[in-house]
C-alpha cells in the first residue's frame, strides 16, 4: 500500500514541478539572476507550495501518525551546525551553476538527453562522496 501511495504522490510532485517550470534552467536561473532581468515566478511556486504544505503538516501533527500506519518520520536535528551551513552553501553554488535542483534533476532524466543524464549521474557521485565522507568522519 505505502509503495502505491508513494508512487501516486511522486506522480503529483512530478506534474507540479513540470507545470511550475522548475525543471527549466532558464526559468530557475532567471529567478536567481536578481541583478539582471529578474523573473520572479519561482516566488509564486514557493508561496503556493508553502501555503498548501503548511496546512498539510499542521494536520499531520494533529493526527500524529501516518495513514498507511506507522509514525511520522520528522527530522530530529534542531541545531544549526556547520554541516547544515556548508551543505546549503555547497548546494546553492551547484544550483546557481546549473539551474537544476534534485527533484527536477531526476525528472529531466525522463527527457532522455545526454546533459540531463550527465547531471543526474554527477549528483549520484556527489552523494556517494558524501557517504564516504560521512562514514570516515563518524569514525574520527
Amino acid at each position, binding site marked *: 500500500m505505502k509503495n502505491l501511495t508513494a*508512487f501516486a504522490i511522486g506522480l503529483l*510532485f512530478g506534474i507540479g514541478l513540470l507545470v511550475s517550470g522548475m525543471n527549466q534552467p532558464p526559468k530557475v536561473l532567471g529567478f536567481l539572476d536578481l541583478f539582471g532581468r529578474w523573473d520572479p515566478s519561482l516566488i509564486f511556486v514557493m508561496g503556493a507550495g508553502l501555503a498548501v*504544505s503548511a496546512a498539510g503538516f499542521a494536520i499531520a501533527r494533529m493526527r500524529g501518525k501516518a495513514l498507511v500506519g506507522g*509514525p511520522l*518520520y520528522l527530522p530530529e536535528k534542531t541545531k544549526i551546525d556547520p554541516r547544515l551551513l556548508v551543505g546549503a552553501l555547497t548546494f546553492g553554488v551547484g544550483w546557481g*551553476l546549473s539551474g537544476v535542483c*534534485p527533484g527536477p534533476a531526476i525528472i529531466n532524466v525522463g*527527457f532522455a538527453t545526454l546533459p540531463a543524464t550527465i547531471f543526474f549521474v554527477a549528483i549520484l557521485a556527489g552523494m556517494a562522496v558524501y557517504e564516504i565522507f560521512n562514514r570516515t568522519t563518524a569514525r574520527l
Partner: protein
Amino acid sequence: MQIDWVNFTPLSALLGGALIGLAAALLINVNGRVMGASGILGGLFSANADWPWRLSFLAGLIAPAIAMNAIGAPKPVLLAGTSTLIVAGILVGFGTRLGSGCTSGHGICGIARISPRSIVATLVFMLAGIATVYVVRHALAGAAS
C-alpha cells in the same frame, strides 16, 4: 532591479506550486515521510533504507516527464556546458546530503513546519545561488568583455 515581464509566468507558477505543496502534504499525512527529493534519493545509499517506497516515489516523479517526452513535448535545455554540469552536479549531490535537504525538503516542507534549520538552510542556498549567478552572468562576463 529589472523585472523580466516576458518570461514571468505567475499562474503556472501558482498552480505548479500548489501541486508540489499538495504532494508534500499528502506524503507526510499518508506515508509519514517528508517530501525531500535529495533525501529520498540519498536514502538509497543506506543499507538499511527502505528501498521499495523510495523507488516507487522516484518512479512516480519521473513518469510524467517520460510521458511528456513520448508525446514530443519540448525537452528542457540545460544551459551549462558538460564540465560545469559535472561540477555542479557533484556540489548539488554532496551539498544536499551534508545540509540534510534541498529546495523541496528544506524550502517547501521544512519552512512549512517552521523549522529554524530549514529557514536558515533555504536562505543560505538561495543567497549562494543568487551570488553564483551574479558571478557567472555579470562579474565574469563583465571581466571577459
